[in-house]
């Protein structure tokens, strides 16, 4: 059996409204990339497809190739609009 790791996934603004979740702990296979987790979330919440999506891992912007580690904090959100 493949090793599982646990990550915390955060949603903000539009993505929190779509998923109706702000924070969730999930188990994923070890060696999963950020982009794969994003695709998994889009499958679960198809309306996310209507947004441009960015990710951060441990509070740093991350690209799809970023390898996830146990206890990582992953955030999924739309392009920022502060100011």
């Amino acid at each position: 059996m493949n090793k599982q790791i646990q990550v915390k996934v955060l949603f903000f603004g539009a993505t929190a409204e779509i998923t109706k979740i702000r924070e969730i702990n999930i188990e994923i296979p070890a060696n999963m990339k950020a982009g794969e987790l994003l695709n998994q979330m889009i499958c679960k919440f198809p309306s996310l497809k209507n947004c441009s999506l960015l990710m951060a891992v441990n509070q740093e912007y991350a690209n799809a190739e970023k390898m996830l580690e146990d206890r990582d904090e992953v955030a999924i959100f739309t392009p920022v609009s502060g100011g």
Partner: protein
Amino acid sequence: MEKIFNKNFCALTNEPIDVGSISRRLVPENCGAIVTLDGFVRRFTEGKETLYLVYEAYEEMALKEMQKLVETAHEKYDIEAVTIVHRLGKLQVGETSVVVAVAAPHRKAAFEACQWLIRELKRTVPIWKKEIYSDGEKWIEGESPQKLSSNYVSD
């Protein structure tokens, strides 16, 4: 939530912002100018009326990104101190949403740094704005990620 580093100060707050006191938080004696941006809630955007705004932040990351911007601004411009405060929660029309204050020996660097800081803040600091209209509401999406660096995930 706030962070003080060297002479700089970054904060997120749910309370109304006193622009004057933020602007003059530091008045360094080697400086002769503070350029302050007072960004506030606009009623009409391309003819559409906004009743009020709601801002939300990924607070820990937002503070880190603000600090990075301030550090880069110090590398790029001859400035002495930067203060950035962004309001969160519900804001009425006319209320200040963001203040960027830059103190420098001379005004030119302060103007340039202030302009650069607000532009980058709007591109990179994880804060989102929801506009509420009389007939609905909408989370505003910033610049599309394609225009950002390739370090960002795009759809």
